[in-house]
């Protein structure tokens, strides 16, 4: 029997000694964060190697936030998720049981290291004269948002439009519903994610106005050029708080919990916040916010808690099967 034990010992030793210092992380994120995390991953890898000596390679996966959450629940082995909605991370905690339900309390600012909002991108010269949300529901205006069933940006867009309508109509829910119904009547094509919507608007030349993340609009403007498009900031919009979380069960199994936690912590560092600002996300730190204050137009922002009572309630009322979004789509 000693011989058997020896065989297993040698085998186990061979397996355990392979690649101990070469770490790999998978960051499952939403659609428009490609450029942000490309830059951040490089910075973090340098930081982690200097701190621990370990080499880290971070792989990225991008798609509509809701679709990405479902992939993680179905088995995509994400070490960290950086999604558009806290609701999507909640789903991973509740349906996938891959992290604790109180995940949002584990990092500062409710695990949202940067914020954004929803703005408009129009073609140069603003031929349809769009200035605010109420211009979007006029007949003949083609609006390009993503699909709220699959995209985080699209849900923020829907809620921003709803919040604006409520404010304009003294809290009248029926009028808000009517407003949002008109809004989506002007949508010629739905993309599943924010980046797809940008492609539809810019590369395919469809529609008069792209309604999307502020960071996505600025990135598109930088890419396509200010001679072709311009950004319109509405009078009021929603404070979007994309959230990040460690996927406990995956990192425990892969032995990557320390580096994954370090990765998320680094988003709050000076360098992490600076990279967020550089990529048109609104940083949390005062220092970075001050540095990039010039690129963000000031506007009135409301939170989801203030107007909708939080994500769970907003989802149940508006986006669940049979919710208001389904009702207005059926009309």
């Amino acid at each position: 029997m000693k011989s058997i034990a020896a065989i297993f010992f040698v085998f186990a030793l061979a397996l355990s000694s392979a690649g101990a210092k070469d770490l790999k992380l998978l960051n499952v994120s939403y659609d428009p964060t490609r450029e942000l995390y490309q830059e951040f991953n490089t910075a973090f890898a340098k930081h982690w190697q200097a701190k621990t000596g370990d080499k880290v390679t971070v792989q990225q996966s991008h798609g509509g936030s809701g679709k990405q959450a479902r992939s993680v629940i179905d088995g995509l082995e994400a070490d960290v998720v950086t999604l558009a909605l806290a609701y999507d991370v909640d789903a991973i905690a509740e349906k996938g049981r891959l992290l604790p339900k109180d995940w949002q309390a584990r990092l500062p600012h409710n695990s949202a290291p940067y914020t954004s909002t929803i703005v408009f991108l129009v073609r140069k010269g603003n031929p349809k004269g769009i200035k605010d949300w109420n211009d979007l529901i006029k007949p003949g205006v083609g609006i390009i948002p993503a699909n709220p069933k699959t995209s985080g940006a699209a849900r923020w867009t829907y809620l921003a439009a709803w919040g604006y309508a409520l404010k304009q109509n003294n809290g009248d829910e029926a009028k808000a519903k009517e407003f949002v119904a008109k809004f989506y009547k002007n949508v010629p094509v739905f993309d599943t994610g924010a980046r797809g919507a940008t492609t539809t608007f810019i590369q395919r030349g469809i529609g008069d106005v792209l309604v999307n993340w502020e960071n996505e609009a600025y990135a598109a403007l930088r890419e396509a050029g200010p001679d072709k498009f311009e950004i319109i900031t509405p009078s009021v919009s929603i404070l979007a708080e994309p959230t990040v979380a460690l996927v406990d069960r995956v990192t425990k199994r892969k032995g990557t919990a320390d580096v994954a936690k370090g990765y998320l912590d680094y988003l709050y560092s000076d360098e992490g916040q600076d990279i967020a600002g550089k990529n048109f996300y609104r940083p949390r730190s005062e220092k970075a916010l001050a540095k990039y204050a010039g690129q963000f137009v000031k506007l009135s922002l409301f939170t989801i808690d203030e107007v909708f009572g939080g994500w769970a309630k907003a989802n149940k009322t508006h986006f669940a099967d049979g919710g208001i979004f389904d009702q207005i789509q059926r009309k």
Partner: protein
Amino acid sequence: MKIPQFVTVSVLAGVLLLPASVRAQSATDQKLLQKIEELEQKLKVLERKQELKDEETTAKAKTTPSIVLGEKGFGFTSADEAFALRLRGVLQLDSRTFFRDHGIAGNDGFLVRRARPIIEGTVYRDFDFQFVPDFGGPTAQIFDAFLNYRAFPELQLKVGKFKSPVGLEQLTVDVETLFNERALPTALTPNRDLGVQLHGEAFSGRVSYAGGVFNGSGDARNSTNLDTDDTKEFAGRIFFQPFKPEADSFLRGLGFGLGGSYGSEHNNTSLPATTGGTLGGYATDGQQQFFAYNPTTGVVNANGEHWRLSPQGYYYYGPFGLFGEYVISNQRLSRTGAAPLSSVRLENTGWEITGSYLLTGETAAYKGGVNPTHPFSLSEGGWGAWQLVARYAELNVDEAAFPVFANPATSASGAQAWSFGLNWYLNRNITLKTSFSHTTFDFVSGGGTGTRAATTAPGIVARQSENVVFTRVQLAF
């Protein structure tokens, strides 16, 4: 829905061909221009919707499991191929007809030789499993049940019940044997056993190896799924195919190696058979037992060291195939229960050489079976593949076994068999086989005087030779 390109081109051409001055001239013209722009937008929207639909279809295909239904069975595979489930099966319907057997009743007949559903698959890409029950014998039993971890092609770990890695013909897949039954020396090699095995192949398949620790099984026995002693058997095999990667070399089909086992056994289930009747024992091609440890009094047990050694090799070139092996099985035995009590080390040996030739020109190989160039079809004129096969084999029992450990009256000390046959592969799944086998026996001085059991089949051979015609209808997928 795909928008015809000429429609798009026509509309855009229409837009572009309109002179700017005309466009701006009048309100009518403005309306016309607006209409064209609207039409252009509609076309773009339709095209984008189609593009998104195509993207969705492509994405869906990446996550949709595939179903395979073909000559290699039925299966389901996840889109990323990390998970798979396959259902295969084997059915062998045989007949054995004995000639000049001096009127022995009960040994001619039809039989279901093997009836095995094979359930196999893969989980998490690197873990394979197989489960094979058999319903062909008098009782249903589990033949194979194992889990295999493919860390690398060079290093794999197999746990469960499977064939012990010693004999060349023993390791041939059951549906790919050239004759209905394996040759005499295979009886000296271990069959399926329970254990743990490391195995793999390296240098582009030039070297393959397997080595493991097993419960230990007697010659010509399958493990009974439990072990009745504390001792274990180590079995291993190394095999070389030095020209395997060289596609054009005439030596590509050359392979040679060495298999062996070493262990210690201490009961009578570690022997080929201790009585007559239906137990395996050393049997002829016709599956009639010609030797058993069956003294007239007392019980024979394995009593210590047991080792086997099997040099082996093959050569395949085009339609021609040749393989052979030599096997030594050396085992210590004791007899108890009646005087004289004894202990002895016996060495039984056997060898075979088997040749085959595919008359229809297909390529022969040790693994993979025969793939007919023109599968049998009356409507399309194919006649499948036809193969001639011939074999000579011997098994020699250590004469020191007689008379204390085996009854010389009813156990032969050796057997020699020559066989020839014709195999017809209608397609990859259906094979018809027919063959003739002639076996003669040796007896120690004064032996072979017993008679065959007349009422049990297979019986125990007496002095006369065995002549048997086999047929087989085989379905394998």
